[in-house]
């Protein structure tokens, strides 16, 4: 590669130095600005006094040589080359007063600024990394004590919560599906439970009325409820074949007895 290089006509020292940059893999550059910054170093002057025109020439030479060497340059290198070629022509020509837009000097100044800024950031990055670093130069506590978290639960309730809770309970009472007074209702389930316990002892025919629980035969409402419940329970037990039941005639007492098994 270097030999191919030497064959190409190189006119200036700067250009020769620039050409040496080719030896560096193009992939090693982080884009055209990085390459420009590298090329600018060959001018060996403060970046603030750099000749952008000269830099443009160096860059264009680099791109041409890359082309000669059939090195494929990324698109942004070519875009930069086109822009620098334009800038170079503008810098070489006397300013055209009819032309709008920024002057060539402004563009050149901005490019110089960009290079200076990138260089400054590189130096800042180097200074930053040269600082003492934690875990390398200085160290944190190796055996930190963990803070014990004592969790204390505090229960809260407001007066409103309290009243709403009470209201909820009372409202629930009012919403009982049985609006009838439960005191006067004997359910079939209750009767069934009762009868199941009692028929075990009943071998003889007995009047159903005698099975009514104590205290349920006085008040008419209670008697009716208990009677109905027990009658329904007895029918259920007969259906299950646990008892037999009979009635002599209409309105005669209903008698039951345990069915022998």
């Amino acid at each position: 590669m270097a030999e191919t290089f030497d064959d190409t006509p190189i006119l200036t020292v700067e250009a020769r130095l620039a050409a040496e940059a080719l030896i560096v893999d193009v992939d090693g550059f982080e884009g055209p600005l990085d390459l420009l910054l590298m090329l600018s170093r060959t001018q060996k002057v403060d970046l603030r006094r750099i000749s952008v025109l000269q830099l443009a020439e160096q860059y264009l030479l680099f791109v041409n040589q890359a082309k000669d060497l059939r090195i494929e340059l990324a698109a942004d290198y070519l875009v930069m080359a086109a822009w620098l070629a334009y800038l170079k022509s503008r810098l070489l020509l006397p300013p055209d007063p009819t032309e709008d837009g920024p002057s060539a000097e402004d563009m050149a100044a901005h490019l110089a600024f960009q290079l200076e800024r990138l260089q400054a950031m590189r130096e800042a990055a180097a200074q930053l990394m040269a600082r003492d670093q934690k875990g390398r130069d200085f160290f944190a506590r190796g055996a930190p004590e963990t803070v014990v978290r004592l969790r204390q639960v505090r229960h809260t309730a407001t007066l409103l919560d309290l009243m709403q809770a009470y209201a909820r309970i009372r409202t629930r009472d009012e919403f009982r599906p049985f609006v009838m007074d439960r005191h006067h209702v004997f359910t079939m389930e209750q009767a069934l439970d009762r009868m199941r316990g009692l028929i075990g002892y009943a071998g003889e025919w007995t009047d159903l009325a005698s099975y009514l629980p104590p205290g349920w035969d006085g008040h008419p409402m209670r008697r009716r409820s208990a009677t109905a419940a027990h009658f329904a329970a007895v029918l259920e037990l007969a259906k299950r074949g646990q008892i037999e039941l009979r009635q002599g005639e209409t309105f005669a007492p209903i008698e039951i007895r345990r069915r022998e098994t």
Partner: protein
Amino acid sequence: MTQAPAERSLFAAPVMAEQERMVEAILFAAADPVTVAELTDRMPHGCDVPEALAHLRRRYEGRGVHLVRVGEAWAFRTAPDLGFLMQKEAVETRKLSRAAIETLAIVAYHQPVTRAEIEEIRGVAVSRGTIDQLLELDWIRFGRRRMTPGRPVTFVVTEAFLDHFGLESARDLPGLKELRQAGLLDNRPGPGAAPDPDEDDAASGQSELFED
């Protein structure tokens, strides 16, 4: 790297003050207590580690951290009297459970009330935990035993309860009528609902409370 006061030769041990700094830094950064042997090993040649440790220990006397011996090794530890700083109390406020607030409400409105009565009013069993929680919060306490068979204990609300809910006495609790007026009982009773037969009982239970 030289740490060096001027006259020190290349192989001389650092001055004691410097050795003390070194021990201090090593012990600070170490994850575990460090033995004298290991300290000696890690420090420049010729250091007197036991002496440096003795100096350092004195320096930290009465400070917020102490240099302590842990078996054969040394470590920095928080001064025992400052242990409380290593605790962070996190107060977490939590709403009282529905069962608890309902039980509390029943005690407040019906006191003195037995557990069986609470269960009857709520319609479900009251867990031991709920009662315990309310006792622990100091919002309810045991009242007099009821003079009925089994002599069950009763529950009443406490001063702390009144304090927390901003009540002068349990009598200040709004009654059902007021609750309804306040819109807290906006659920209208179903059609044909009989007047609540318990209303009288509740009232009598409450009046019983305020006799004494």
